[in-house]
């Protein structure tokens, strides 16, 4: 019995979620192989071999894996899947897209968005927009799961795994990568930042002007509600919530956010939640640790100067 973890990279580095996925996989107490793929995997493999708990790093290198397509990653994993009793990936955009299909091709039901591995085939996962946590017993002979990375700590370095090269099946050529429009931000990434400050639609056109200076001082990532994104005040990839990014920072500051169920689903695991809202009955206060009933247009500049002074 052994585990296959699917790594994800960004450029020449592993994504933080891969470190968290390895921690999750360790719960099974079985040997772990980490699959690293791309057009040039040397640097990533050198990083991957240091992950504590990894037995072997499998590298798959091919030009068509530069921008990995769902069908090609599935083919790659399926080419070695028979050797594994457990397959795990982070519940990332790529993981969510790829893993269910791998499972279906093996006629296995996957369990997605796992936040806790309680026993070898028993998992906890949220449903109903994070309002319910369900314990699931999976009866399948092969366990295939995706894990919510923020629910697991990152594994340490200090390992020294062996690196093996594996053959890459030819490209399926069903789909084709055309382009990517990535936003480049000075801010840390939403899903791994220690501090996140987010705004609702009431910030309007002043969204950036109000939040940026505070975010810089707190080294915080910036988030937004769906209403704010839909109104065009913030970029799509800043959306936090059930259908945006799910975060678990040390500190979450919600500014002018009502606290809709779908938004709360994305912030529930934050350690400390601060809510700033001028409506004392805003639902967000029921889910916050600290509340400040005030007008955000006066509070944000004040907070900015208070932070500057201290």
């Amino acid at each position, binding site marked *: 019995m052994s585990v296959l973890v699917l790594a994800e990279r960004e450029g020449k580095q592993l994504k933080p979620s891969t470190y968290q996925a390895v921690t999750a996989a360790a719960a099974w107490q079985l040997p772990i192989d980490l699959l690293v793929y791309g057009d040039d995997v040397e640097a990533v493999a050198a990083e991957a071999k240091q992950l504590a708990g990894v037995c072997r790093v499998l590298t798959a290198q091919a030009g068509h894996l530069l921008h990995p397509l*769902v069908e090609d990653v599935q083919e790659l994993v399926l080419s070695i899947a028979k050797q594994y009793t457990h397959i795990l990936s982070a519940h990332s955009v790529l993981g969510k897209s790829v893993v269910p299909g791998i499972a279906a091709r093996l006629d296995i039901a996957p369990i997605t968005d796992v936040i806790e591995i309680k026993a070898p085939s028993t998992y906890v996962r949220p449903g109903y927009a994070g309002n319910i946590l369900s*314990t699931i017993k999976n009866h399948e002979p092969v366990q295939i799961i995706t894990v919510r990375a923020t629910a697991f700590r990152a594994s340490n370095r200090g390992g020294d795994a062996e690196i093996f090269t594996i053959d890459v099946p030819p490209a399926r050529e069903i789909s084709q990568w055309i382009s990517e429009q990535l936003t480049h931000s000075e801010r840390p990434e939403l899903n791994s930042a220690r501090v996140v400050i987010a705004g609702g639609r009431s910030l309007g056109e002043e969204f950036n002007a109000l939040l940026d200076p505070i975010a810089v001082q707190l080294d915080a990532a910036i988030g937004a509600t769906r209403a704010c994104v839909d109104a065009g005040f913030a970029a799509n990839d800043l959306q936090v919530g059930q259908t945006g990014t799910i975060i678990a920072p040390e500190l979450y500051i919600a500014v002018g956010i009502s606290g809709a169920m779908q938004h709360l689903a994305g912030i529930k695991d934050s350690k400390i939640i601060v809510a700033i809202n001028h409506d004392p009955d805003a639902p967000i206060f029921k889910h916050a640790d600290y509340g400040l009933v005030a007008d955000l247009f006066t509070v944000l500049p004040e907070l900015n100067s208070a932070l500057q002074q*201290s």
Partner: protein
Amino acid sequence: MKVLIAVKHAIDYNVKPNIHTETGQVELAQVKKAINPFDEISLEEAVRLKERGQVSEIIAVSIGGAEAKDSLRHAYALGADRALLIETDAQLQPLAVAKLLKAIVAREQPQLIFLGKQAVGEDYGQTGQMLAALLGVGVGTFASTIQLNDDHVVVTREVDKGTQTLSVKLPAVVTSDLRLNEPRFIKLPNLMMAKKKAIETIAVSELDVDLVPRFSVISSREPQQKPGAIQLANVQELVAKLRQAEVLQ
């Protein structure tokens, strides 16, 4: 070109379900249900494609009990041409749903198949990807814009730090994200007309799919709630608290 839309009669997205004190399971019997919002978005997209003359027929298919006809009527009111119900009261899990849909795809031969990126409720988010894999066709997940062409569909999808654009050969599966469009408001006459339209029902036995659950939900609970916010008087108090909690460097 035919388009198939999978429609789930799901728990209303505004409803927070309760947990039955004795069984420890989510209580769904009396809960208000409606068409899964992501499926409504898929329908709207298909209707727009039809209005542009790119699509000839929109088929909506739902799987579930007779109550699912409500969501299929909603699909008719939005502009579906034909509605099918695979009628079953069995407990359905994503893999079985994907297999049932595969059987319908074999029958109807649509070129484009829309599913929601997830269904409100269990939030599994698996079915579209599984259907594509079982069919051996491509999939564009989390679509926020699509452009349909003769033999491929261009899908712009939301990824971690922006968007990615792919071209997927037809037939293809697309899973709709919230930003794909904003569904139109349904007019009352359309709703009345939808009530009169026929819904074809198909028995699961005709499709030869094994529905045996692969996993069981042992128990459910609500996540731990915070006791409620400590109200602060001003910004100075806020900064002091954050310092105390050691979240400020």
